[in-house]
């Protein structure tokens, strides 16, 4: 990575923090209205141990939920991508499922599996994030130009060989595009569970305790920590994309 590529976003971040600080300072807002960046540092200093454990809990549950979403989403996408009938059958179901606000699903899941907090959180993270993956994979596979298939099929290649040599790699750019959306969604899912159905784990729980104790700087500190984790996960996906589907970016130049 070049110096410039690192410097530009860092400067943007600094400008953002300065504007935020200035906004609070000029309006003379009290902490309970809006905390300023300078209030966050003490919050992190006081609770850094909690931030680490809770942050880790949020992170691993999000990642497991996301992995589950990848496995299920890719399988569903393959089924829908290869079979028209399955696509016609499953698509409306999935759209309906995706349209249900997940906040309403949280209490249901929490009642369904009482006490299984990790499992519940992972489930919500999964449920909110598998949809874009399933759709993108199915579209990627079903829009494969027939000529691509014919090139190999005319030589007697099996369906599996065609999938492995052409359909799979050709769908990777769409897959990673969806994964970038899914990663953020999975985060939202995890925190939804942690906040709507509090069970003392994850950054969501820390946010909740900030709320009950009227510790507003803590609440803002949690938001920033969440944003930070989101950025880290997002760029992990981008790095994977560059490794496995970097050719797609070159192809667009």
């Amino acid at each position: 990575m070049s110096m410039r590529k690192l410097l530009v976003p860092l400067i943007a971040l600094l400008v953002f923090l300065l504007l935020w600080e200035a906004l609070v300072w000029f309006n003379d807002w009290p902490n309970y209205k809006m905390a300023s960046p300078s209030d966050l540092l003490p919050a992190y200093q006081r609770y850094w141990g909690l931030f680490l454990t809770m942050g880790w809990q949020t992170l691993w549950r999000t990642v497991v939920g996301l992995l589950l979403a990848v496995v299920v989403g890719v399988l569903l996408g393959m089924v829908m991508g290869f079979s028209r009938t399955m696509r016609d059958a499953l698509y409306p179901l999935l759209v309906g499922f995706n349209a249900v606000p997940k906040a309403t699903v949280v209490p249901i899941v929490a009642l369904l599996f009482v006490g299984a907090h990790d499992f519940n959180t992972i489930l919500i993270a999964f449920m909110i994030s598998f949809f874009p993956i399933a759709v993108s994979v199915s579209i990627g596979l079903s829009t494969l130009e027939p000529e691509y298939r014919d090139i190999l099929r005319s030589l007697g290649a099996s369906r599996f060989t065609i999938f492995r040599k052409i359909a799979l790699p050709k769908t990777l750019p769409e897959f990673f595009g969806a994964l970038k959306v899914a990663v953020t969604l999975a985060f939202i899912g995890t925190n939804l569970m942690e906040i709507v159905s509090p069970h003392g784990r994850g950054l969501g729980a820390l946010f909740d305790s900030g709320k009950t104790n009227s510790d507003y700087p803590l609440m803002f500190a949690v938001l920033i920590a969440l944003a930070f984790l989101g950025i880290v996960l997002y760029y992990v996906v981008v790095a994977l994309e560059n490794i496995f589907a970097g050719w797609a970016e070159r192809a667009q130049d």
Partner: protein
Amino acid sequence: MRDCISLIPSCRKVDLLCPDCLAPASVDKLIEIRDVRHAYSTASGPLPVLAGLELSVREGGFTAVVGPSGCGKSTLTRLVAGLMIPDSGDVYLHGERVTTPRATVGMAFQNPVLLEWRTILQNVLLPLEIVPTTLSQRAKEERARSLLALVGLEGFEDKRPSELSGGMRQRASLCRALVHQPEVLILDEPFGALDAFTREDLWQIMHELKAREPFTGILITHDLRESIFLADQVVVLSGRPARTQYVLDVPSEAPRDLDMMYTAESADMLATLRDQIRIAREGEAQVAQTSSGASQ
């Protein structure tokens, strides 16, 4: 018994009552298509696309197929490649019925369909990963490189398809279609999307490939000049549903450089073909009229 109706000595109209046309599948004909009929099933009922297709290509021959768009030319290529079986009638390769794909066929389309994640060399090598072969990896690469050199792509082996022009991509796609030394090369409007100059370059390259590689060719094209420049036989299909409407033999002594286009003989052939295409399209319009009249 009737004879084939011959208009010009070198031309022959297919007549179903003609004994020659009904002769058993002969071996010196590498590709034989006999009275093939096919209909696709679509949402609005069966769509007949082929209705009495006759075609034979001798070993080492090069046949161009022209006809109104949508008449069933690509369907014809899929039949020869064994990608589908017709409702009735037969397709023979070497006197043997084609029922499944076989590794002795190479295909190239208007869209070069190169794999963006592979280099040009890796793209050309693709068929050799599928077709059973005794060649070593080294020998495979040598074969691919020599083909690429033949079409003027030396030095581009490690480039990605996106770094090449349309004409260069099409050349790479030709190399891929030929790398496994297929008996039959099927080209479905391969030069259709190229500009006129690039297209003429590729015609020359096709001649070089024909001289060096022992394939028998079927070329689908919209370009009548292309058909007489490259082929020794031009088959005109009628409008959909397609049957063989006219067969033109291009004299083998015709010079194969671009000047050939401007001889009186070529002008005659082009005029004949243009006439036949007009007839095919008028027939199509009539069919459309009667069928819409019937549905009212």
